């Protein structure tokens, strides 16, 4: 099985906020595993798509969740009329055929699941398939990338020290207002002054981070608000729909945010 369906044909839009493109390229050249850190919606997934396109590698993405078992990553036996048949999981697929495997929100997965990547992420670069009795040697082009949102950190959800230390890390944050304006304008296809207004509003909502909000409005949310504006929804409504209601259920914070939106427009 080849990985053509995982190839990215058109260039995904990405606006660099620092030297992360060069840094990631270097890490890939050395086949070092990379961890992308940053709040949700700041462009981690878009960045890895862009890099996969740039490096010409297929990208296998797995969204991790708390019920995910090791079998969901490496594969399992299935039944067919002739008996059992092994089916590779997404990670095994990427390892065999030389893709970039992106484990999104790795902390969500149980800790006993995440240890299967250990042998892949040191100089051994092998994936043992215990149930099948096979040791898969990684394709030379294979690279493992994980994303990790430090905002969610709690005692219950944190990476093991032994996992963390296998990775290089790139830190992502919300871009500078001017860059973020450009991104929102381009992605939502709206005028730059309108995008600037949205970025100003986002700044107010990020001020409340840790003061009742877990996260402020992300770049992704701004793009959603921009798309609503493009469709003719008035600004206050678009902000309510895309920026306020999704992030908080607290009526008092909603009220504060709605008036902060009014102050910015």
């Amino acid at each position, binding site marked *: 099985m080849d990985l053509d369906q995982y190839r990215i044909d058109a260039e995904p839009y990405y606006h660099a906020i620092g030297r992360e493109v060069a840094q990631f390229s270097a890490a890939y050249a050395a086949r070092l595993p990379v961890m992308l850190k940053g709040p949700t919606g700041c462009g981690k997934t878009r960045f890895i798509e862009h890099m996969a396109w740039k490096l010409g590698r297929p990208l296998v993405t797995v969204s991790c969740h708390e019920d995910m078992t090791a079998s969901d990553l490496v594969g399992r036996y299935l039944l067919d009329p002739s*008996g059992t048949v092994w089916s590779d999981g997404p990670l095994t697929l990427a390892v065999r055929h030389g893709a970039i495997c992106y484990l999104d929100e790795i902390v969500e997965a149980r800790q006993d699941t995440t240890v299967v990547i250990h042998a892949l992420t040191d100089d051994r670069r092998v994936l043992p398939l215990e149930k099948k009795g096979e040791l898969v040697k990684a394709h030379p082009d294979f690279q493992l990338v994980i994303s990790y949102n430090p905002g969610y950190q*709690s005692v219950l959800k944190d990476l093991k020290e032994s996992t963390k230390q296998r990775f290089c890390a790139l830190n992502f944050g919300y871009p500078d207002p001017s860059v973020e304006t450009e991104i929102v304008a381009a992605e939502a296809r709206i005028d730059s002054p309108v995008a600037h207004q949205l970025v100003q509003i986002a700044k*107010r909502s990020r001020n*409340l981070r840790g003061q009742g909000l877990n996260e402020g409005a992300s770049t992704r949310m701004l793009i959603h608000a921009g798309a609503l504006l493009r469709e003719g929804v008035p600004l206050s409504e678009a902000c309510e729909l895309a920026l306020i209601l999704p992030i908080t259920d607290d009526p008092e914070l909603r009220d504060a945010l709605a008036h902060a939106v*009014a102050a910015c*427009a």
Partner: protein
Amino acid sequence: MSPDPRGFLRIAGTTEAADEPVEVIEAFPGEWLAPWLRARRKIEGAGYGAPLEAAFRKAAPACARIVGPEPAIDMADYLSAVTIKAGRQSGEDLCRVAPAVAERLGDGPRFRSWMSLMQRFAALAPESVRPVLDRSEALLARLKLSGLEAWLLGGIRLAGADREKRLAFFRMESADAERLLDREAGETGFFDVERRMRAYATALYGIRAPVREAPPDRHDGAKRRASFGDGMIRMPPSFPGFLGDEALELYRAALAHIGAHMRFSGPRFPVGKLKPLQIAVVSLIEDARVETLAIREMPGLARLWLPFHIAQASGAMTAQSLFARLSRALLDPDFEDIDGWVRKGRDMFHAAQDRLDDPGISRAIGNLLGNDLGQMRVQFNAKTYAPQPPYRDDNSGLWAPDDDAPPPEDAEATVVESVRIRQSDADDPDRERQTNDPTPRTGRARSVETPDTGVPVASYPEYDYQVGCERPDWTTVVEHAPRLGDPRFAAEVLDRRADLAKRIAALVSAARVGRPVRIRRQADGETLDLDACIDAHAALRAGEMPDARVYQIMARRTRDLAVAVLLDISQSTADVVSGGISVLELERDAVIMLSQAMDGLGDPFSIAAFSSNGREEVRYHRIKDFGEPAGARVGAALAGLQAGYSTRLGAALRHAGTDLARQPSFRRLILLITDGEPSDIDCPDPQYLVEDARRAVQALSATGIDVFCVGLGTRNTEQEVRIFGSRGFVQVTNISVLAEKLPALYLRLTR
């Protein structure tokens, strides 16, 4: 002209009635006259004295004309009851205000409800009837009858049995009276919207400074202004004359303005040799400067501020009027003023548009304008001056105070204020800092926290079943560091009860679950379930549809339970039961054994003890927190417990629940051990705290926290069943076996 009805009555032979004046007979026409005469005779026969009789004869007909004869006649009974409870003076006052009240209420049933309310009030707080009657018109102007009832009962609850305190409340001498009145009247006090306003200020400017309500009576009403300084924003408790949404807009405008100062005003200006007039003008220019800068960043703020600028271009040439006009001229591009001084100020300000980042321009322009005003001989009174519009602060945060100035009077009050943390602040990262360090800028502030006074950490609402509503922030929980007793206490108990400890250990190991379990025939899983595969294959061979559930998984069934143990240590636990041991000592032993069991099971648990001394002091002792190991310190803290005070159960439950809610466990349980019904010194009504506790239990259950009560002793358990429900309560009649019962009970409860 109608014929004189007295003529008819003379003919009818009712001579007594014939003596009544015309207006009385008109007020009680026809068949109502006889009942009226009976009511009159009743009052006169009771011997309340001539002034009261005269007052009634005057008031009742007046009321009858407004609300009809029947309620006016019934007034005699209510009047009698009030007079008996609260004295003749109160009775006379009732008569005096009754017509005006009747006028305001407008109909019989409501007038009757008012009289009945006064009768009840006279029975509960006789000394306060006169002050309340004196204010009845003003009160009813703001409150509906139900609101008045809630306010009266609120005052009684607040002061408890303390007559002086009640009197102070109903004379409106205490701040609580005003605050409660605001609340019942539906006026928006800052207190009610503090949290959202603080979030608003944080959102706009990223300000993390605490926003506090300024102590009441600091300013007279007309001069009420917000202020800032020393890293704190103070808002007036309310802005008189601004209701509902208008008040909210004003708070927002004020916070947006202060935020602009904090963002754009530099270090404080030195006062130097400036006169009050110059200070006022410089402050005004500075206000406009920071607002202009803020509007450049957030254009919507102009819409927030401009509606408050209502100065007109014409008007008296007073400083107050000119200042208001200049304020508007600087901010409102559409405002044209003909006055030369206002125009000059506006032109200078506009000329400086490119240099607005520099606070120095406020001083420069302000000084020039101030000199002009001086030459114009405009009167300026610094004492009565308040910046206009009302959203602007009092400017005290802009100016460096003189070093030898006396500290502000309210320094201490503000410090107390800053350690008082509302329930809603529970997740506030500032919390720790505030509880541990009540920002003692003045030496006096230290007095707030002496070793045994404890730290007020939270306030909770309390439910009043008579009014059917929760009074917000009614009780204050004061946390005390546990007094440590004998550190070997726990070890001694375990030694003394070695047998029991061994039995509990056996029970625990039996109850401890968490072994991996194989779960077969799953649609999804790690490995194939061999039996299911064979079945499926057989089905395939037979040409049947195979069952797709051919996997198995290994899963651990874990206990996921957090428990908060809450001990009642009120005075009654000092009672000695059989064997010369006090209830508290038995409770302590039992908790040691219980914590042994819980520790063995690996359930996270906390232990706290509570008692109360009125609503302002619900004493809470943290003996063990969730993260803390159950070591010798916990034993020592248990050993150091002393019985005392009362049992305000609802507040203690709410506080324990707030802690427990932060535990990430699936099941959360408060295990309460108590020997009596809720009671407190300021609650004469025994049902009140029972209903509040019931309400607290229900509220906790709605947030997924179960409450289970272990009641000690052989009392009637009706109240406990009312509070906890029959399944949330067990009675241990023989207290001496509590240490054995409790762990066993716990295991059964949490299986």
